[in-house]
Every structure is written in C-alpha cells, then in structure tokens.
C-alpha cells in the first residue's frame, strides 16, 4: 500500500479549452474543485488533492491537469498560442 500524500500536487485549468461542463467538479472525491460563478472549476482546497486524476480522466476537453512533482508536462499556453 502506498500512503496518500497531499499538498504536493498542482492543478492547472486551461480556460481556453474549458467549456464549464462541471464533470471535474462532480467527480472530485476530496472537494478540491469547486465551480465559480460561470461554472469554470477553481481549486479552493488544493492541499487536499490526492492525485486520483478522476477530474483529468473525465475531462472531455483536455482542459484540466493534475501535475505531480517531477513529471513531464507540456506548456499548453505555447501550444495554444502557436496555432
């Protein structure tokens, strides 16, 4: 059994891609995510994240990403602005 570590994960939301469907908020088991007034996800309790990636798996628009430390990620802003 791996023990659950909290507080080391970062969550990125890419608003250019997000459609505010609310799936990530519906699936988050630790209440990390909440919807703002327009329905976009915000992370008021980021320290509770346990890296289950349910939000990332259920995001149909590739707009949310849980980033564990020392994992390769691409710079989405440069990908989107290069188009």
């Amino acid at each position, binding site marked *: 059994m791996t023990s659950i570590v909290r507080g080391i994960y970062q969550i*990125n939301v890419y608003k*250019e*891609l997000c*459609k*505010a*469907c*609310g*799936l990530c908020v*519906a*699936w988050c088991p630790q209440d990390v995510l909440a919807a703002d007034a327009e329905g976009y996800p915000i992370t008021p309790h980021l320290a509770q994240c346990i890296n289950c*990636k349910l939000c*990332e*798996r*259920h*995001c*149909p*628009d*590739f*707009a*949310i*990403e849980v*980033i564990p430390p020392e*994992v*390769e*990620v*691409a*710079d*989405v802003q440069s*990908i*989107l602005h*290069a*188009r």
Partner: protein
Amino acid sequence: MKLQNSLILREYLRPQVLPTTWCPGCGLGIIMSAIAQAVHFRGLDKDKVAMVSGIGCTGRMSGYVDFNTLHTTHGRAPAFATGLKLARPEMTVIVVMGDGDSMSIGGNHLVHAMRRNLGLTAIVVNNSVYGLTGGQSSPTTPVGGRTTTARSGSFERPMNLEVLARAAGAAFFARATVNHTAGLTKMIERALGVSGFAMVEVISNCHVLYGKMNELGDAAEMMQSMDRTTRRINPVLLRRAERPLRLTWPGAPSWSVDAPPLEGIAEDDRTPRGVIFERKGSVDFGQRYYAMLEEIKARREK
C-alpha cells in the same frame, strides 16, 4: 496510468482546431482521450495509425486527432477502412462510428467488415440517439426511451451489438462506458493488438437531447448512472497489453464463444461491460488475401 492531458494535446491532437464542437460534457472527448492514450501505451507510431470516421458527432473525431485521418461518407467508414487496410497492411486502422452511423445507415458495411474479419479496430460510440441531427430514434434507443421521433417512447427492440458481432464473426468484442475511463483505455489498448476485427462498444451520454427528453439529468448524472445500468463481467479486467491476459477465472460463468452466453444472466438486466468475447487464432481476411496474391504470382511465374 494516465498520460498527462498536456502531453496528449501536444502529441496526439491538433490544437489549432480545439476546443471541440461537441456539447459541454459530451463523452466523446473522453473517448478521444482514451484512444490517444491507448495508442501511446501500445507504443504505436502515430504516423502508422489511421483513424477513419463516418458522419455524426462521432465522425468529427477524425478532425481533432493528429493521426492519418479519413472523414468519410455516412456509414461507409468500415468500407473505406477495408480498402485502406488492404492497401497498407502495416497500418493500424481505427474506425470510429456512432450508433446510428454503424448500425442503421452503415449496418451492412459493419456486418460485412466483421464477416471478413479484417484487422480493423472499430470503436462504436453508443449514445442511444442520433445526436447531430436533433435527437431522432436510433437502432439502440431503449424501449420506452423518448426521442424527437418517438415522443411517447420508442417501442422498437434495440439492437444488440454484442450478439451481432458474435454471429457475424468478429474476433474481439468489448463493451466500455465513458464513466469507467481506465477500463475504456485498456480495452481499446487490447483491441489494438487483436489481429482480426476488434470492436469496442462505448456507452456514452447525450445529455443534451436524450437525457433532457428522458429526464436523466446532466452529463455527470448520466455518466454516474452507468454504474447502475452496467455490470463488470471480468473482475480481473485487464492488465497491460503486453502481458498474457486471463479472460476466465476458476468458478466463473463461461463467456467463451462456444458456450451459450446468456444462461443464468437473463435475470440481471444490467448491460455487461468488459471483454465479452475473444476468438483466438481466427484467420483474418487480409492474411487470406495476401496468401492468394502470392499464389497467383507463383502460378504466373511457372
């Protein structure tokens, strides 16, 4: 294992056409993510992968992925894919169809693609309704399901793709849902390694048309209801694709092709999900075709 979304975006999608035109919360994006991850975990070169799609919401998927793509006519995606696979047998061909596209308009193409057992990977997205054209009844609308063309409930018996695939001679059939995303990825990953015709039926949601008319709630509620309407039939579901897979376990009900499938299951009306059947050692059409070509060549040289 989950490939980071930013890496999927960079490696397997065309960011210049994103965001997708699909409604917010549509399960098609989840399926597209699963396909990209399955190709990644299989270790396939994306230039050796071709995606063929028909018409419909699902047909738009070929515009967003950075493989070789063909957006073909309505229902004829298996026919185009057959030609592509015969011309380029080294390619991995993924056929993406919706339920109306594959089972009503392209019904005969699908049946004959399964009969030939050519090495294609078909992904049939089943959302019980014609989404793009405004919510008409499709061949998989359940009895009693209200649609635009069946205002007081559909009375036709829905088509069972699993039995059709079994009868027509497909080599592999699995059923996944967009709720169970890890299993979806692994089933597509398994299907990509099958030498004959492999089919993955993905139960998806159309909360905008079908869900609204039948009061099934929003996208999240519809997806979470798939936990109640389906049941997993492979407790040891899937491991990584390169390892040998055990489809049965001691004392399990047999789901092999030779045994009658529905005994003892009939009282459970939940849809089974998981790897439903796999025919091992079946010769696909491509192998026979190329053997025949060799034979003709040898006869001419004589």
